[in-house]
């Protein structure tokens, strides 16, 4: 017989290992069989991907190596970020593009018409604070008139907790990522209760803002500048080992900052009573450090902007109406979905009925691997996640499933000092049908009332799905 075709030489299978170890995905009985014949087997608790856009998924699969490479670059940048607090200044002097008719807000872009109650309230307060209106009615009218420009903090190198309002006259912290020489800005934290960021605009709210501008800001600025700078990364690393997750719990971070600041405040003081009030204010506000952990996270993440093809999330932010996501690999595009109502513990007299949908840029902390991602570090607030330390550990562990890596710098004591989950990869979010888990405060849905609770929220899947499709679009264009 004539043998026409020679065997194809490349068709070979590597010698099989002696010991077969199996990953089983699907029917449980197959794993049972393997166990019954003493073969090591791990069962995958498999879920279908969270998307119906299997085409986009296939595009990402096809470009896996390209994306992986881009993500490596992003991770390298995020891992080596080094946020330093340099001092403070008035927003109009330092935030690029800031002007007197611009109001920055939390989350993705949103029009006055679509804004939630607490954000509207905060804008009314900010207008009063800026002296652009004398009454609430005037302020409301101005806000809806089109004479003012609204824009996300995010697009102006800034971040703001809750409503996140920043106007031209407000003092802001200046944070510099030393490694990449980029800056991030954030206002000073007002404390709890009736505060602007929760949509309150009563006279005492405006009065406090003025005190912060006239007394707190110059005192702090002098003290910080006298120190040269304060290494926020270092403080955050320590705070994570002292029971903070630097989002919903900032007691350790605030205390550490206080220890740094106290002698410097004294040395640079001009008035004893003012200085004492400044120290009291910081000491009395456990969340003071939040407005530093946020710009620290922002400065770390912003350094990785514009790395094409990366599927790593650099932004998660909410405006009380929409939940927005941005990726390193999709430029300035926002991918949004409906902001969810948080699952929270409410202050006496309030319930979920009163809650505003999720709001604020503070989910930047989760994006940087802290907050909900590091909740295992913060046993004191585990009542938000079921009350047990083991619940918190479970939450943190599950976040490793959607991250590209673990922090080399920030660690979680209760997980044997494992690095925090870092670099949310939307592919893994879709794959696992598991969205980021975020610690959050809850604002009242009506303007002027303020905070009514605190709790946790699971990010909606929609913006991640859209981001996946968006990334697939940029990849398939090439």
């Amino acid at each position, binding site marked *: *017989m004539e*043998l*026409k*075709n*020679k*065997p194809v030489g*490349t*068709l*070979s*299978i*590597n010698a*099989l290992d002696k*010991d*077969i*170890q*199996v*990953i089983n*995905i*699907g*029917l449980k*009985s*197959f794993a049972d*069989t*393997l166990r*019954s*014949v003493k*073969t*090591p087997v*791990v*069962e*995958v*608790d*498999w*879920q*279908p*991907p969270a998307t119906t856009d*299997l085409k986009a*998924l*296939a595009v990402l*699969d096809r470009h*896996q190596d390209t994306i992986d490479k881009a993500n490596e670059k992003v991770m390298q940048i995020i891992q*080596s970020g*080094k946020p330093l607090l340099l001092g403070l200044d008035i927003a109009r002097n330092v935030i690029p593009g800031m002007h007197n008719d611009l109001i920055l807000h939390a989350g993705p872009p949103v029009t006055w018409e679509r804004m939630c109650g607490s954000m509207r309230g905060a804008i009314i307060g900010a207008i009063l604070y800026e002296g652009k209106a004398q009454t609430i009615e005037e302020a409301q009218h101005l806000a809806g008139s089109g004479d003012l420009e609204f824009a996300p903090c995010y697009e102006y190198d800034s971040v703001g907790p809750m409503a996140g309002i920043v106007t031209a006259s407000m003092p802001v912290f200046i944070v510099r990522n030393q490694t990449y020489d980029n800056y991030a800005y954030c206002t000073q934290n007002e404390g709890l209760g009736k505060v602007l960021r929760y949509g309150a605009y009563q006279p005492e709210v405006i009065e406090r803002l003025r005190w912060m501008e006239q007394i707190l800001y110059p005192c702090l600025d002098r003290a910080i500048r006298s120190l040269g700078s304060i*290494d926020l*990364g*270092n403080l955050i690393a320590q705070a994570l080992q002292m029971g903070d997750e630097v989002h919903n719990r900032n007691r350790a971070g605030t205390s550490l900052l206080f220890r740094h600041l106290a002698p410097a405040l004294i040395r640079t003081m001009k008035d004893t009573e003012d200085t004492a009030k400044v120290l009291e204010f910081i000491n009395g506000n456990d969340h003071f450090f939040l407005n530093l952990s946020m710009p620290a996270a922002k400065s770390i993440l912003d350094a990785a902007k514009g790395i094409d093809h990366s599927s790593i999330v650099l932004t998660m932010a909410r405006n009380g109406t929409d939940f927005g996501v941005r990726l390193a690999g999709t430029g300035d595009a926002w991918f949004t979905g409906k902001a969810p109502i948080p699952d929270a513990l409410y202050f006496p007299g309030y319930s979920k009925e009163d809650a505003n949908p999720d709001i604020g840029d503070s989910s930047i902390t989760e994006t940087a691997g802290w907050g909900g991602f590091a909740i295992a570090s913060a046993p004191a607030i585990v009542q938000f996640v079921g009350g047990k330390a083991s619940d918190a550990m*479970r939450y943190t*562990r599950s976040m*490793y*499933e959607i991250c590209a890596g673990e922090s*080399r*710098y920030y*660690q979680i004591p209760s997980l*044997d*000092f*494992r*690095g925090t989950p870092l670099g949310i990869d939307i592919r*893994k979010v879709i*794959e696992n049908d*598991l969205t980021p888990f975020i610690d959050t405060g809850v604002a009242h849905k009506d303007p002027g009332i303020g905070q009514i609770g605190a709790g946790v929220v699971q990010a909606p899947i929609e913006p991640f799905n859209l981001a996946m499709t968006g990334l697939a679009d940029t990849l398939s264009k090439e």
Partner: protein
Amino acid sequence: MHTESVIIKGKYLDSVKLMLISKEMRSQTGVSDAVAIMATPENLAILQATGMMVNGIDTADPADICIGVVAETEDIASQVIDLARDRIAKGFASGAESSAAESKPRTIDSALRIMPRANLTLISVAGKYAAREARKALSRGLHVMLFSDNVSIEAERELKEYALSRGLLMMGADCGTAIINGIPLAFANQVRCGNIGIVSAAGTGLQEVSCLIHNKGCGISQAFGTGGRDGKKQIGGLMLMACLQYLIDDADTKVIVLISKVPDQEVMDQIWSMIATTAKPAVVALMVPFAPPPLKNVHPAPNLAAAAVLACRLATGDQTLIGNGKGQNGDIYPNRKLITLPREPKRVRLCALYSGGTLSYEAQVIYHQKMDRYAYSNAPLEPSYRIDGLTESMEDVILDLGADEFTVGRLHPMIDYALRVKVIEDFSKREDTGVILLDVVLGFGSHPAPQEELAPVISKVITEHGVVVICTVVGTDEDPQNRSQVIAALKASGAVVTGSNAEACEIAMSIIQTLRRS
């Protein structure tokens, strides 16, 4: 004395951990002093005061860790520095978190973290997602057995090409059975290890042949499944050939068995070319009789039972082994003279109710040979003999109850016997049904005690309707169900039990021929 220092930029560890690292450094032989510490001004002052201010440390920032060592030699100093670097890099104990505490893995990657040495992935998720999971597994260097069906043939081709570019097995899609290193995967049987290697594009074909080999006292080196479409032109026999090559090269394999429906001609030619390169005997079963090429080592087998017998003869050199009788391991040989034929003259039709697709196919081939015409089937040899579902037919029928149309919303008939029990009763009530033919597939994944489902209905239909019930039991005595026990129970219920599917078919056909002649 030698001193050395290193600054690790931008890394924070708490002081307790750094002290533990310092202690470990100091405990090394030849070290007189050592320290790892955050370079805060206070700490640097302490180092100064204690004489540990090794050169270079003073340039460290407060957010850096500095390491200093005073040791007898340069080598020792740098070794200790390396030790400290390692401990600091790991955060002292990072990653040591016990794997048991890991949350349940949701992806292949997280499963790999728990089992870093995993080498095979068994995938049985819904078809539209299955190819993705398979690709992921292959990209992580894992062999794949893809049990899922409803995977497009294009995707199968792509997966197989990708797998082979990485030297990996890609069994399937729709691969129901394999035995790797003696380990049964999916629907497989507990089969002795031995020197016969199988590559099969037919799932129950692999089960039938591997069990018969075991039952004749021989064993299996590997039994690869490829999925039924591998021999088609679109796949080009990629995995059939790769597995064949593996068996040719495999030192543990003395005899090769290749099972497939007749593949694409080009594929077949390549397979012959490959067999021509080896001296190992190759038993080839294409489910139909065929003319083999003039190669000394090719042994054509007309059916699955014959393939098993040929392989055993070649493996043992014992030419007395025969197909259906005298094997040493519980082979059975029903005495045809003792079979009670139906008394009612109208009962002359055959009704075969299979759970194994390949066995149903083989039954149709044998039927065609013996009866010189085609049987009706939901999966017929000739398209014009198709009948849909369980519609009444006045003809002989050979049904595959494992086909998609019967498994919608229902477990496979190897697991759930309810449908077959019902169909046995229904068909027996029909006045023309003379012979009922069944396969009973044992092994992992199958019904744990099929005799308990079948025996009552078999004795009932024999008593009430006088039909002949013939069963072939695919399995071994090592299977969880124990073949001998199943056979004993079926026999006790009045069934005729045979040693192979081919034999069951022969008997069934000859009975209906007898019935029709009389």
